[in-house]
């Protein structure tokens, strides 16, 4: 035992090393991710930003284990799932990764409570009703448990989706443009809720959010800029203005990377 290196108590919630993903082959091949190295420590809120085609969505898809990267590794909570089978990645995903989507992705024929309990059901367990109720109360929908998605507003549906993402107590929550379909007031509620998941003492959640909205990014601790499948820069304690300014000058960041 080497006394100089104390192993970290918590491995990072999510790490990617040399993450590369190409689509197609030969001359027509498109390089969506070109060797991305990122580490997301436990209890952080990170926004991943970039113009269309910068590889944001591909990054999220690979980080979640939905798609296998062409090269590089994905390590979640200390588990390297890069070479796992589809089946094993699915089982891991539903226990350790929470998803929040732009389109909410609630099942239309299940009530809010049943939607929140669904990941546990899929894992073959009986949903913990107390926990489901407590999560719905936490997202401010204690009274709406019996409603179907069609009876809820967009913001309410997204809050149900956040409760669903939290139900398995995941290592990391991956959010894909979670406010893309919401008006600005509702978007604020949803972002504040994501922020509180990270800040609340008991929670210590980790959130990685892909977005193109500088206001949304300003709720994060750190912003990572992706351009042409590469990390073009990061910004700590972002403000909406600073992020918007940086986005307007991404070409300079790219020049910086190239040099």
């Amino acid at each position: 035992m080497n006394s100089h290196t104390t192993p970290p108590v918590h491995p990072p919630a999510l790490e990617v090393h040399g993450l590369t993903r190409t689509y197609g082959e030969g001359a027509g091949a498109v390089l969506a991710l070109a060797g991305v190295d990122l580490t997301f420590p436990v209890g952080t809120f990170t926004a991943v930003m970039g113009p269309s085609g910068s590889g944001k969505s591909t990054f999220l898809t690979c980080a979640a284990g939905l798609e296998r990267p062409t090269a590089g590794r994905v390590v979640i909570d200390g588990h390297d799932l890069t070479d796992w089978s589809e089946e094993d990645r699915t089982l891991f995903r539903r226990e350790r990764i929470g998803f929040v989507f732009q389109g909410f992705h609630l099942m239309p024929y299940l009530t809010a409570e049943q939607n929140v309990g669904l990941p546990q059901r899929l894992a073959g367990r009986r949903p913990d009703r107390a926990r489901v109720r407590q999560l719905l109360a936490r997202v401010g929908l204690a009274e709406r448990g019996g409603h179907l998605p069609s009876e809820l507003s967009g913001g309410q549906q997204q809050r149900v989706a956040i409760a669903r993402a939290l139900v398995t107590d995941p290592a990391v929550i991956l959010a894909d443009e979670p406010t893309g379909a919401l008006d600005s007031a509702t978007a604020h509620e949803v972002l504040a809720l994501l922020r509180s998941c990270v800040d609340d003492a008991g929670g210590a959640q980790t959130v990685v959010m892909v977005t193109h909205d500088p206001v949304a990014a300003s709720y994060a601790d750190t912003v990572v800029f992706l351009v042409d499948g590469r990390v073009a820069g990061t910004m700590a304690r972002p403000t909406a203005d600073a992020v918007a300014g940086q986005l307007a000058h991404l070409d300079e960041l790219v020049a910086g990377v190239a040099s």
Partner: protein
Amino acid sequence: MMRLALASLRHRATASTATFLTVLLGTALMGSFATLAQTATGPVSDVDQDTLFIMGAVVGSWGALIVLFAVVSTVGITVTQRETEVGLLRTIGATPRQARRLVRAETLLVALVASALGAVLAALGGRALLTLLRSGDVVADSVRYDAGAAPAATALLIVLVSLVGSSFAARRATRGPATITPSESAAGTQRLRIWRVVAAVVLIGYGLAMGVVTITVTADDPDPYAAMQTSGSCAILVSLGLASLAPWLLRHLSVLARPLLGAGAAGHLAAYNTRRRSHLLAGVLAPVIVLTASAVGVLMAVGTDNRTRPGGYDDDARTINLLNNVVVGMVVVFAAVVVVNTFAAVVAHRRAELHRLWLLGATPDQVESSVLAEARVVAGVGVVLGLLASLATVVPFGVARHEGIVPDGQLWLPVLVAVGVVGLTLFSARSAVRRTAPALGGVR
């Protein structure tokens, strides 16, 4: 408009295939019998004319009922599935009238091509039927095949019926405000439309009344086939009536079918999907009911006829028996194709939703078994209702032929049909969900 319709059809292969096959086989089935009625108007003896009319018009009309129902229901499913897209078209400036015209143009294209091909099949099928009748000495060898305009008229009728069906469905799809957000509403469409109730009351009432007529009137007729004429179609009529109530029946009966689902996540999902979105799966339930009822009803009646026909089982009887089996065979094949078709169309439409389940951590096996669990409920409910409907033929005809309420033989037949129909439903669900599987992948 036609060009847009053509482009849009190419994007909707599965749903268009469902309409295409239903119209094609429907025209072939209905048209074959129509040619017999047409042949009867030619230079034939009075006896032959009677026989051909009974075959063509009476027997053909049972088939026609099923065909028209199937066309309306298939077209309805494919049009209703397009609510989102119709909403999108309207946000970019299409008036409800234009959106409806597009839907009608698409249906017209598919129905025209399919029914034209179907008319060719009908001309060939009618000739084969007549050859069968002649070789069995049911009609004189001198009777000449004369299809005349019958296949074309049938094709035209079916095209018109498809258009009416698509107009109804398109009106429903354009009723709401223009929107790009898909209305996945589980609620809302729960109320049973009044036309469904009216159709059900008329069809079931008529079917039961014909059953009563069989027992009280035609049972004493000197012609042994009078009772068969009145009771033969009762099962089909009652089953069509039940089929028009399919969304309501599925919602309420799926609760009873809960034990079929098992306790896992797949069963849980299927239980709520069949109950809260019964209008979606009702499209599959309807043909299952009709398939079961027509197969059991007509085959049992033929069996009773064989045992109790006055004058015993002679050559003549053998021919009639063969003909009956041909008729049932054609109807059953048609209904079976409709079951497979509608399942394919319904599941293809749910691709996004099944993909979402996978994103949330359902294994491909779980996705498949949730659809299979739904299929079990549909098959179970459909077979039970179909068997009930078949009683409308079996009981009156049995009483008329002095076998009583329970026929004297062939009690294995309903079991065999039930097993076959359940197998077919599960098979079509499985192949439909397997075909959507490559859609997995990606976050959205």
